[in-house]
């Protein structure tokens, strides 16, 4: 060992303990190069950028509370007699799953709280993902290079729905059992394979003795495992791509402006976890969720009115409720369209939003990276499509609660159902057109603002008696922010004759693309933003108006 080495190790010996531990770890894990890239990573500040964090944190809360619940829950369908502390169920026959959930709720101290935190977090997790996804959609954050991360997020949303559904079914109460029965009916409706899948899933006839145990491993292991992987991938990509930002002074496609991870975002994001957890804990203290004791144990011959799934399945429930009862019998077989069409539609509606980024990039033909977010108004067709999609989703939710709409607003359930049936077709179209018009109107207003300045509301009377409103010219920051967005020109079909005079065939897909491109960026579908010349002409020509 050389002297130099000795000196160095002695110097290290005097370094603070934390540094020595870090050095030790770096020698084995190479953490310093990782930290170099990430410790002072910049994140922009905007409340809507924290929606994803709401999802991440509620996911972590769900895992923490879920692990606790597994310590007490018995995923078994063996019938037992109840002898716990809830009087109105004394001596009733019920599955061990239901019995142990009652035990958690009434006899484990804090068990009810953890159960309620788990369930409330699940509802908030899904709601958060929905809103986060819409934020990403309406600001165009799904564009290159983030398409894959969009798909990761979408998969998380869909898997979250099914994880939620399997978890909701575990207590084996009358409400969730009714939901499982519905699932069985939906599976049976699948042509050719339906009956077999149902028998394999339930271990024979419904309800059988197996589904709680099977749903349990799906709910606590299979789906959350996949989701955890996707969440990690989602986060790595967020770090790798760096966060998007809204247009503004100093913000370009080539930079990201904000504050560093250490210390500001460490404190803000870390603190936000505790804020989310704390808020949900308080909600679990004051609002009751899924009181399975009031619903009673599942029996296939009992039911309660108001049989609905948790909100995230409400849209599927709605599709099933307002579908007419079509059934076709042929050659000894039955095609249960009344159930199967909603099942397919469920996938189609969700799939439509998932593939949208790829459709849009095909229409624009844009291959460049986008890190500056769009304001929804500056992408009227996309915004219109998004609102139309939400409308379909909301119509489904209304349909899924049609009985409660009927009782609470003194309407006829048949009328509500018919209203929903019509809205399913009319609603999205109206929403699309209205949204697009609003967007164009807002674009026009921006146009005005850039050219003529902000309306101050001050009315001035000129010497010759004319009244005018004083317009205050915008600052350069504002001018830049309002004109920073990029506008596409509609695509055209290229020359049909090449340089050698040989005619080429125009493919159908190309024609379609041009048509769509015109629908997106054609003359009436976006307002050309003001040019420098226009601005100069107005500001210098007439003087300030």
């Amino acid at each position, binding site marked *: 060992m050389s002297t130099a080495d000795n000196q160095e190790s002695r110097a290290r010996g005097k370094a603070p303990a934390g540094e020595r531990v870090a050095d030790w770890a770096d020698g084995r894990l190479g953490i310093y190069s990782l930290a170099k890239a990430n410790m002072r990573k910049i994140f922009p500040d905007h409340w809507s950028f924290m929606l994803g964090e709401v999802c991440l944190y509620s996911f972590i809360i769900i895992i923490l509370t879920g692990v606790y619940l597994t310590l007490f829950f018995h995923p078994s369908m063996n019938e037992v007699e109840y002898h716990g502390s809830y009087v109105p169920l004394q001596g009733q026959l019920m599955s061990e799953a239901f019995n142990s959930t009652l035990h958690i709720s009434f006899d484990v101290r804090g068990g009810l709280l953890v159960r309620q935190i788990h369930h409330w977090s699940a509802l908030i997790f899904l709601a958060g993902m929905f809103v986060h996804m819409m934020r990403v959609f309406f600001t165009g954050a799904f564009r290159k290079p983030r398409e894959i991360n969009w798909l990761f997020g979408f998969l998380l949303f869909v898997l979250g729905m099914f994880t939620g559904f399997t978890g909701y079914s575990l207590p084996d109460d009358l409400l969730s059992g009714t939901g499982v029965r519905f699932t*069985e*009916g939906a599976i049976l409706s699948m042509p050719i394979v*339906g009956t077999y899948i149902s028998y394999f899933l339930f271990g024979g006839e419904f309800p059988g003795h197996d589904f709680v145990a099977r749903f349990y491993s799906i709910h606590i292991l299979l789906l959350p495992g996949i989701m955890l992987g996707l969440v990690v991938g989602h986060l790595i990509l967020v770090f790798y791509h760096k966060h998007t930002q809204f247009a503004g002074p100093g913000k370009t496609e080539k930079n990201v*402006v904000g504050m560093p991870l250490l210390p500001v975002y460490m404190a803000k994001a870390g603190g936000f976890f*505790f804020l989310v957890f704390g808020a949900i*804990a308080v909600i679990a203290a004051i609002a009751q969720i899924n009181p399975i004791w009031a619903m009673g144990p599942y029996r*296939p011959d009992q039911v309660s009115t108001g049989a609905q799934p948790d909100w995230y399945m409400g849209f599927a429930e709605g599709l099933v409720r307002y579908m007419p009862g079509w059934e076709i019998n042929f050659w000894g077989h039955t095609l249960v*369209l009344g159930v199967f069409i909603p099942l397919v539609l469920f996938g189609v509606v969700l799939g439509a939003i998932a593939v949208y980024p790829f459709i849009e990039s095909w229409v624009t033909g844009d291959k460049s990276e986008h890190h500056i977010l769009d304001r929804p108004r500056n992408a009227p067709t996309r915004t219109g499509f998004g609102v139309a999609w939400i409308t379909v989703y909301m119509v489904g939710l209304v349909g899924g609660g049609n009985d409660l709409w009927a009782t609470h607003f003194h309407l006829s359930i048949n009328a509500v159902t018919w209203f929903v049936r019509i809205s399913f077709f009319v609603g999205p179209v109206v929403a699309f057109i209205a949204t697009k018009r609003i967007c164009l109107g807002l674009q026009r207003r921006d146009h005005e603002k850039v050219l003529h300045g902000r309306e101050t509301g001050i009315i001035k009377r000129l010497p010759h008696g004319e009244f005018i409103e004083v317009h205050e010219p915008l600052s350069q920051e504002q001018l830049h922010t309002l004109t920073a967005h990029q506008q596409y020109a509609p695509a055209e079909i290229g020359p049909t004759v090449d340089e050698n005079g040989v005619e080429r065939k125009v493919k159908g897909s190309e024609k379609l693309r041009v048509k769509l491109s015109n629908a997106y960026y054609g003359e009436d579908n976006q307002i050309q933003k003001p040019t420098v010349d226009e601005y100069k002409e107005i500001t210098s020509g007439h003087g300030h108006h």
Partner: protein
Amino acid sequence: MSSQDIPEENLPAEQDHAHGAVTVADEENPFADPGLPPHEHRIQDIDEQAARRSERAVALLFTLSMLATVGFIVSYVAIPHDKSIFVFPIGHISALNFALGLTLGTALFCIGAGAVHWARTLMSDVEVPAERHPIEAPAEVRAQVHADFRQGAKESALGRRKLIRNTMLGALTLVPLSGVMLLRDLGPLPGTSLRHTLWAKGKRLVNMNTNQPLRPEDVAVGSLTFAKPDGLEEKSEDFQNEIAKAALMIVRLQPGNIKDKRELDWAHEGIVAFSKICTHVGCPISLYEQQTHHVLCPCHQSTFDLSDGARVIFGPAGHALPQLRIGVDSEGYLQALGDFEEPVGPAFWERG
């Protein structure tokens, strides 16, 4: 497509990105990016008093959190798990759940609030730009990777030795089939089990409520009764599976009100027995309106007319509720005259 080029005049003005750089307004382009605005100080940055106030607020929040955790532990130990309290406007609730939730929530929330307040008021709030680098690799890296891959592929000789390639693909394709095979024993094959229920000729209809066999005179016009087959007890091994198919809904109509001829034939003195399981997706349908003779499903609102062969008059169900043919045995009890003639419950592919 013209598209992706950002119009020249809107490209950011060349500027020093250093923080606070004030660029002179571009005379040529009024829309040019003026660069990051200069940083403005917060009160806490210039006034040590204010900073100390913030420090105290953060410390107070952290202290509150500690107190709340102590409160949590005290509540856990001190409050009996079955104690009920009335809290306005929530109602009668479990004291333990309320106390634990509030203390835990406060403990967590105060940590978060403290950390965020600290970050917002005392940590540097200077906005700094970080450069982005294109995600795509530079051309030479790209070329290198392609070349390396081609080299590797060539060395493996996979392209040349087709026999290896094809048999390997074959093996890899087949091997997952073992996994699929292993799923076979998840459940039995359906066979005809969906077509049969416990009902058979001579089975008495037993009242769900009293567990006694029903007599025709027990069933009044306008009443609603649920029945199960004789011999099926709640403690039976297969009670859940059997009741899921055999549950029966019994109503009595004035024979003159029955519009469907087969329904009348299969009834006994106006007493009709229909499957309680909805033909849509299997909810126990039983919202019987005795004046209209309609029965509504609480799950998806399929509506059936019990005076007309239980045909569907609204909603997503695809076919009528199956009817059980009933009569009276020698001792005067209602009995089934056979099983249902068609499968009960939701439709399926093999139903026909």
